[in-house]
């Protein structure tokens, strides 16, 4: 009977568990959408700080993919399978965006390879890393090479702004030629170092201050904000993390805003739109692997990052604290998860903490 013969065709795959229909979502799509969403920010950064950022992004992406491929082949797995999820590419892109535009090539190499190899694969690869690999790499070079890491280029419209592609290339990869790039401190750095001037005086005295948050920085942050809103709209991640972080920064900055004096830490708007705030809020702390899992947990996680970012900016030893704050909260994420489990259907209250031993 023909029907019986066709058994062979239906038994090929054996029994599979339901559901048999699967959604269209995939890790690759999530990752590539996030990468696409960085483009406005990247463009703004390139516009204001020169070609360096773009070169960095490309260079970091290459290193990240290389590291991923190397480790994966060392672990005897399918390289194409792992590269195709785009997670390595995303790490590279984010580090490229976070590093100073004229960061030398070896600095990027150290940061990315540390983040990828030690921060990600030594923990077991994608999904297993407790810390955000990009931030881990960033922090390593920030601690090791503070000089290189805190100097940015003068933004567009300022003297010394260098918009030449070749100069950028040769600064990052000094092949015999050296370019005397003019470097400049970031607004956050200037503000932190400020001991005597009032905010108004500072704004006038230092050309990096322009508008609310420093020349160029405001636009870069606004670009990231727009991308972030887009990603929330596309349901790549929920609003909880970013809103928690931004709200916490705003509240902290308002609470500790002592007006215009020389001991001021800057206005809430300054903090929201300066440094890596928006990049952190929408692209760093939304990394699901190292963050909290439930929505309530993400809100707490974001708020924790926000508070710590402000604390580090205002009283810490570094001008910006997004990386440190993220790593610190990464450590707290499992605990947050244990205490923010949702209430299951049919239960009176949510479970909290670890299972009770009887």
């Amino acid at each position, binding site marked *: 009977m023909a029907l019986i013969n066709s058994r062979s065709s239906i038994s090929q795959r054996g029994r599979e*568990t339901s559901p048999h229909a699967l959604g269209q979502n995939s890790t690759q799509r999530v990752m590539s959408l996030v990468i696409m969403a960085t483009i406005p920010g990247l463009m703004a950064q390139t516009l204001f700080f020169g070609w360096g950022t773009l070169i960095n992004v490309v260079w970091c992406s290459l290193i990240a993919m290389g590291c991923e491929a190397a480790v994966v082949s*060392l*672990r*005897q*797995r*399918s390289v194409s*399978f*792992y590269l195709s999820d785009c997670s390595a590419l995303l790490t590279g892109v984010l580090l490229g965006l976070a590093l100073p535009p004229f960061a030398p090539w070896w600095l990027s190499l150290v940061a990315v390879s540390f983040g990828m190899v030690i921060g990600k694969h030594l923990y*077991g*690869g*994608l*999904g297993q890393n407790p810390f955000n690999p990009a931030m881990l790499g960033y922090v390593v070079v920030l601690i090791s090479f503070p000089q290189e890491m805190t100097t940015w280029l003068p933004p567009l419209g300022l003297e010394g702004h260098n918009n030449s592609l070749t100069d950028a290339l040769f600064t990052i990869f000094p092949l015999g030629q050296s370019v005397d790039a003019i470097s400049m401190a970031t607004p956050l750095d200037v503000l932190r170092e400020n001991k005597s001037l009032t905010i108004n005086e500072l704004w006038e005295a230092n050309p990096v201050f322009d508008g609310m948050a420093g020349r160029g920085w405001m636009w870069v942050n606004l670009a990231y904000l727009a991308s972030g809103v887009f990603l929330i709209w596309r349901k790549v991640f929920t609003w909880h993390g970013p809103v928690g972080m931004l709200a916490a920064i705003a509240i902290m900055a308002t609470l500790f805003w002592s007006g215009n004096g020389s001991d001021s830490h800057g206005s809430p708007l300054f903090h929201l739109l300066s440094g890596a705030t928006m990049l952190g809020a929408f692209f760093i702390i939304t990394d699901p692997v190292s963050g909290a899992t439930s929505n309530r947990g993400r809100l707490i996680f974001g708020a924790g990052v926000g508070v710590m970012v402000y604390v580090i900016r205002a009283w810490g030893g570094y001008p910006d604290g997004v990386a440190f704050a993220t790593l610190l909260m990464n450590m707290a994420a499992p605990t947050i998860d244990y205490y923010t489990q949702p209430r299951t259907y049919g239960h009176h209250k949510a479970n909290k903490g670890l299972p009770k031993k009887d």
Partner: protein
Amino acid sequence: MDIVLYAIGALLALALIFGAILGFAAIRFKVEGNPIVDQINEILPQTQCGQCGYPGCRPYAEAIANGDAINKCPPGGQATINTLADLLDVEPEPLDAEHGQESITKVAFIREAECIGCTKCIQACPVDAILGAAKQMHTVISDECTGCDLCVEPCPVDCIEMRPVDITVRTWSWALPQPNHGKAGLIATDLRGQTV
């Protein structure tokens, strides 16, 4: 010199006071907990098979409580070892192969045509799961059989065999997805020598 004496005196007084408090607390707040032997015995599979080298589960539980290794129980397998390790707060070890290997659950089965009714297996069964009388055919109550296989050896006509417990529609359940279901689920050593 006086200072030294004062110090010693003060310390003595403190020691006495705290000692008294501790002593009082030890009696007053004594926890009437499950003795550790009972807790261990609770975890052991109660097959009473003696593969651990002790005449039953409780003796082995007592031995563990007195510091014997926790990895001598093949019927319990790794799951039991892990639970014991958890209870005793020690590192779980792999099963000691000297005492046998973890195998699927089996129950004894008497080929009744061959049984001569010698009652030897009845005497050997630690849980009285064999029914029969002298010169009468014996049979195993398979629901009560722990699969210890202590009845196999004494049988003079070798009519007892250990049969694996069949999985039926009612006891079947899905297995965990294969570790290589996805290429992501493995660690490097799993694939050593293989190309993916």
